[in-house]
């Protein structure tokens, strides 16, 4: 990306059009910075290289970790801290010690996943430069947007315009212009 390229915002009316445009632009060598859609479009995420690969491992780690912690707590309290012979039951009766860790493990996994989501999305972020663009509020309703690095020169600009036109863009504009 040269210093001359500025971000462009292209607006589309449906998911098929925005996917088509994204494929054309990538084929023509333009960099798609982001896409804004009112519902998840999985193929678009693939085209952008958007990954969510951190979520499940972190959730698994947190879930199993907290579960193990609770098993440890129960064994410690019943076998070491205050051992009590109740009806001849074994002190470390692990079978019944599985229930609470399961519940708390699931909760911890969910909470960890949520924290990863917040961290990786950067949310809460109540102010973003894109919110200043007029018409952007339809991104959460019925319009699909592409944020693309603009063309570097005139020849690029022709390919850029053609790709967007053929895909059926409703409007194209430079951001911040």
């Amino acid at each position, binding site marked *: 990306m040269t210093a001359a390229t500025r971000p462009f915002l292209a607006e589309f009316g449906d998911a098929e059009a925005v996917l088509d445009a994204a494929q054309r632009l990538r084929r023509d060598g333009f960099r798609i910075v982001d896409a804004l859609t009112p519902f998840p479009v999985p193929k678009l995420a693939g085209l952008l290289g958007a990954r969510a690969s951190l979520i499940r491992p972190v959730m698994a780690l947190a879930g199993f970790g907290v579960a193990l912690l609770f098993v440890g707590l129960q064994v410690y309290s019943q076998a070491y801290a205050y051992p009590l012979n109740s009806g001849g039951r074994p002190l470390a009766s692990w079978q*019944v010690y599985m229930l609470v860790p399961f*519940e708390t493990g699931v909760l911890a996994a969910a909470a960890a*996943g949520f924290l990863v989501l917040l961290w990786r999305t950067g949310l809460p972020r109540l102010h973003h430069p894109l919110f200043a663009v007029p018409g952007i509020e339809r991104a959460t309703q019925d319009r699909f947007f592409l944020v693309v690095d603009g063309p570097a020169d005139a020849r690029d600009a022709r390919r850029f315009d053609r790709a967007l036109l053929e895909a059926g863009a409703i409007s194209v504009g430079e951001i911040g212009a």
Partner: protein
Amino acid sequence: MSAVPKVHAPVPEGRLLPAGFDDVDVTAAVSDPVLVRRSWRLWWIALAATLPFVAATLVGLAVVLGVGIGTWGINSTIVWGVAIANYVWWIGIGNAGTLISSLLAVTRQDWRASINRFAEAMTLFAVSIAGLFPIIHLGRPEYFYWLAPYPNTMQLWPQWRSALVWDFWAILSYLLFSLMFWYLGLIPDAATLRDRATTRRAQVFYGALALGWRGSARHWALHTRLHMTMAALAVPLVCSVHSIVGLDFAASLMPGWQETIFPPYFVVGAMYSGFAMVVVLAILIRWGLGLQSVITLKHFDAMGLVILLCALVMTLSYATEWMMAWYGGEHAERSLVVHEFAGTYAPLYWLLLLFNCILPQVLWSPKARGNLWVMALVSIGINVGMWLERILIIWNTLGHTELPSTRHPFVMSAIDWTFLIGPLGLFAFLFLLFARFFPVVSMYEVRELAHKQREAAGAAGRGAP
């Protein structure tokens, strides 16, 4: 009654959305009642109607905490009563919300998209109400925190082998999990409401809830991954939570309670009463907010089939209980089954069988499933029948002691009735607030569904010769 025009084209037979339903339609249909609707008169009337029940619940709480649990009908023989039955019943209702969001998501059932938001809200309110009962039913409720392993000077540890301690963690985990799951799904819709808000106050409120969501595809990838993973976790969570509730009884040595069937039987029972409650709420929401194009007859057909399946499983479970009591030859259990059918509470038991086993059989008929009056009546009957089942599990087993001299019937006191009726109004109150200020249908999921339908129709059109 609604000032909002009824939405759009009729839904074709057997379809989930009207043909050509687009993103504008669902967004307008769901967010306009929250943001722009002018006439809320009926809502205010309904809210006012729930206030006496809310007040009654608060008065009941004050009496139970201030005067004591002696104000209930419990006696030295029947030591558990309405509080525990209510607790089990409300948790059961809550389970259906999670099952609709999670189990149906994991099994890719598209018809969940229109109903999962308010079903999850139902879960939150039901579990919150349920959580009150284990605390207030304690003889010394001020020490309820002893159930948690906090550092203390008394060398006190929780009894980890007790089902009641498992309950504490199960309910806590379930409530917080459900809250996170519901909120996760709400974030994109809160963004929609923020962007459609007509007042600054609404914009700030929904904007804060939306955390600045802008629909970025990168964010959607993370959101979808987390949502699906949480849905996959929620299914075993629901099963384990209600199994633990069943173990409250089954981990004991009482005749009629010590049955290995209890955990799965309670889980199915929860799904049963929960779906019945969802049907009633769906009928009310559909009518009250004019969402006929989004909550369709196909949804009720699907829910009716789930209810019918549960009815059959519950009937089989009851039959198993009777069969094992007879087959096992244990006198205490056989005597209990006879007591169920012919003893003090026999009329209630027969009513239970009518509502839970007999009446829902009408749902075999597709016409019955498509008739909302029938669905409503059957669902209300199921909810009543399931409460009767919970209370009779307690009354029959505890009341049918070895020696006839200790058998005392349970007489419901005024405070018992207060706790039976009051929370129903409290639930309605919370639900009305939810329906007023939040989108009752998950807009982004219905948009996704409409998109999938269009893609499928397009592919079918291209593929057809």
